[in-house]
C-alpha cells in the first residue's frame, strides 16, 4: 500500500511534543506502507487545529493522527474525515467523536500515581506544594482530577500552595524561589512536568530538599540519580505515544483494527527511594538526550523504530 498520513499538533517548542513529532516521523519511516507524511505542527487553539485538520482532509490523506487540543472541540472536522473514510487516531488525549480511535497516555492516572507515591513518601500527612500546568487546558484538568482523587485517599495531606507554571521552565523556577523565600516549611512537591528546575531552585537557594515528583524528562531522571539527597519519582508520560499512534493508524488501514476503540497507555512510576527503583532509573537514563525529552523514547509493543531513527527525526520523504 501507499498511505498518506496527516499529523496535527497544537503545541510547538516543547520537548515533549517535539519528541512526539519525531516519534511519528520515525514510525512512519519504518512502516513500509507509508509513503507520505504531512505534519501540521504549530502553536494554536482548537479553531486552528480545525483549520489544520480540514487542510489535511483537503490534501487527501488516508489517516490522521492528532494530539487533540480538546476532546470535544474538533468533532466537526473529525466527523467529516471519517465520513470520507479517513482513519482518525487521537494520541495523548481522547476525542469524543464517534468512531475515532484513541491511543492515549492516561493523564488522570499519571497524576494519581505520582501524587499517591508522594503522599505515601511523606508519611500520609504533611504540606504539599502543587505545581500545575496551564489553567484551562484539558490535560491540566485531567491531571487535576487524578491528583484530587489521590488527595481524597490521604486526609492528612494539606495543599499549602497551588500554582500554575504555564509549563514554562523559567516561570516554575521563579515560583519555587518565591515560595522558598517565604520560609514557610513544606514536605513535598508535585510538579506537572516542570521538574528539574525545581530541583535547581532548592539546590541554588540552599534549602533542604524534599521529595519531588516529576515526569520522565531526561534532565529530571538524571537528577534522580545524581543529586545528593534528592528523593523523587518520575512518572512516565512518553511522547513516543505519537509513534504508537502512527503504528495503530497503519494497522487499521491494513484491516487490523483493534477490538477496542480506546487504548490507554498507563504510566509507570520510577522512584529513587528503593534499590529496585534506582536500577530502573539508571537503566532508563540517557544523558545525551535533550533534557526536555522524555527518556522513554519508545512504546514497547507499538513502536518499531530505533533510538537513532527517532533522534534523526526524519519521516518518509525527508532527505
Amino acid at each position, binding site marked *: 500500500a501507499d498511505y498518506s498520513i496527516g499529523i496535527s499538533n497544537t503545541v*510547538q517548542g516543547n520537548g515533549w511534543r517535539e519528541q512526539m513529532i519525531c516519534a511519528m516521523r520515525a514510525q512512519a519511516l519504518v512502516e513500509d506502507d507509508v509513503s*507520505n*507524511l*504531512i*505534519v*501540521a*505542527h*504549530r*502553536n*494554536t*487553539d*482548537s*479553531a*486552528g487545529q*480545525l*483549520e*489544520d485538520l*480540514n*487542510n*489535511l*482532509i*483537503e*490534501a*487527501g490523506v488516508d489517516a490522521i493522527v492528532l494530539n487533540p487540543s*480538546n476532546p*470535544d*472541540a*474538533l*468533532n*466537526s472536522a473529525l466527523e467529516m474525515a471519517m465520513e470520507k473514510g479517513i482513519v482518525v487516531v487521537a494520541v495523548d488525549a481522547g476525542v469524543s467523536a464517534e468512531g475515532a480511535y484513541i491511543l492515549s497516555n492516561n493523564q488522570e492516572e499519571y497524576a494519581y500515581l505520582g501524587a499517591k507515591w508522594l503522599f505515601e513518601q511523606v508519611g500520609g500527612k504533611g504540606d504539599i506544594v502543587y505545581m500545575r500546568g*496551564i*489553567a*484551562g*487546558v*484539558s490535560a*491540566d*484538568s485531567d491531571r487535576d482530577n487524578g491528583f484530587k482523587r489521590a488527595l481524597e485517599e490521604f486526609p492528612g495531606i494539606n495543599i499549602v500552595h497551588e500554582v500554575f507554571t504555564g509549563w514554562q521552565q523559567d516561570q516554575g523556577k521563579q515560583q519555587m524561589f518565591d515560595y522558598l523565600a517565604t520560609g514557610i516549611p513544606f514536605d513535598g512537591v508535585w510538579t506537572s512536568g516542570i521538574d528539574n528546575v525545581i530541583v535547581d531552585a532548592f539546590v541554588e537557594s540552599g534549602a533542604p530538599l524534599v521529595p519531588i515528583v516529576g515526569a520522565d524528562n531526561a534532565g529530571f531522571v538524571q537528577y534522580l540519580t545524581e543529586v545528593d539527597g534528592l528523593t523523587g519519582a518520575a512518572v512516565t508520560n512518553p511522547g513516543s505515544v505519537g509513534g504508537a499512534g502512527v503504528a495503530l493508524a497503519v494497522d487499521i488501514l491494513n484491516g487490523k483494527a483493534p477490538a477496542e476503540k480506546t487504548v490507554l497507555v498507563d504510566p509507570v512510576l520510577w522512584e529513587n527511594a528503593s534499590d529496585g527503583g534506582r536500577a530502573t532509573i539508571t537503566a532508563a537514563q540517557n544523558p545525551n538526550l535533550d533534557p526536555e525529552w522524555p527518556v522513554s523514547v519508545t512504546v514497547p509493543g507499538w513502536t518499531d523504530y530505533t533510538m537513532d531513527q527517532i533522534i534523526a527525526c526524519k519521516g518518509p*520523504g*525527508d532527505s
Partner: protein
Amino acid sequence: MSDIIKKNAWVAGLMALLFVLLILTKAIQPSFGMSGLESVARAALPFAFATAGMAVVVIVGGIDLSVASMMAVCAVTAAVLMERMAGVPAILIVLGLGFVMGLINGGLIVLTRVPDIVVTLAMLFVWEGVALLILESPGGATTEWLKQSIRGSVIPFVPNALAIIAACVALVWIPLRRSKLGISIYATGSDELAAFRSGVAVGRTKIVAYGVCGMFCAFGGLSLASLTGIGEPVPGPYLMASVAAVVLGGVVLGGGRGGLLGPIIAVFILRIVRTILTLLAVDPNVTTIIEGTIMVGVVMLGTAATLRGARK
C-alpha cells in the same frame, strides 16, 4: 487624489495576490473545490473578526492588544449561555458584552490618559482572567443551528462563512463609515489635535471605536464557539495575526488611513498560504519561516512600491 489611488491600488494588489494563490492551490491539488474554499473561509472567521476589530482601533489611532482575550471571554460566555438558553438571546447578550468590554477599554484609555498600548496590554490580562473565571476549563456547548450555519453555502459558490464575514462587517462598518461618526474616527486617527479643533468629541469617538472593536471580538468569540462547539478560556493566536493582517491590508499604524476590506483580504491570503503549505507537505518548521518571510516580504514590496510611487 493620488492617495485614494494608492490606497485602492494596494487593495487591488492584495485581491490579485489572493486570486493567484487560489489558482495556485487548484494547481497543486486539482480536487480543491467548494469544500476547500469553505474550510478556508471557516478558518478565516475568527481571524477576520479579530482583524476587523483591530483595524477599527488602528484607524482611530490606537491599538488593542486585548482582542484575543476578549474573544475568549465572548466564546466562553456564549458556550455557557447556550447551554441554558436559546441561541438568539445568547448571541445578543454576547454581542452586547463584547461592545461593553470594548467601551471599557476605550473608556479607560480616555479617562486615565494612559497610552492605548499600555491599557490594552493590562486589559489583555484582565479579560483573560475573566474568561478563566467564567469557565475554568474548556466546556459549555454551542447551539446546534449556529454550528451548522457556518458550514456549507446557501448562496451558490459563496461559502456561508464568507457570507457571514461580509454581512457582519458590512452591517457594522458601512453605515458607520458613511456616518459622521465614521469620519470622526478617521479624523481622530489622522490628527487628534486638529480633530478636536474641528469640533470632534475626540474622547467619545475613541471610546466608540473601541466599542466597535469589542463588538467584532464578540463576533470572533461567537465564531470560535460555533467552530469548536464549546468555549475555551485560553486566548488563541489572534493578537499578532490581526496586527499583521491589518498592516498587510494597508491600514497605517498610527491611524487615519485604510479601510476594512484590505485587512480582510489579507486574512484570507494568510489562511490560503497555510493551506498551500499543508497541501505541499512542507515541513512545519519551514512553514513558520515561510509565513514570517511572506509577512515581511509583502510589506517590504508594498513600501518599496509606495516609496517609488511617491518619488515620481
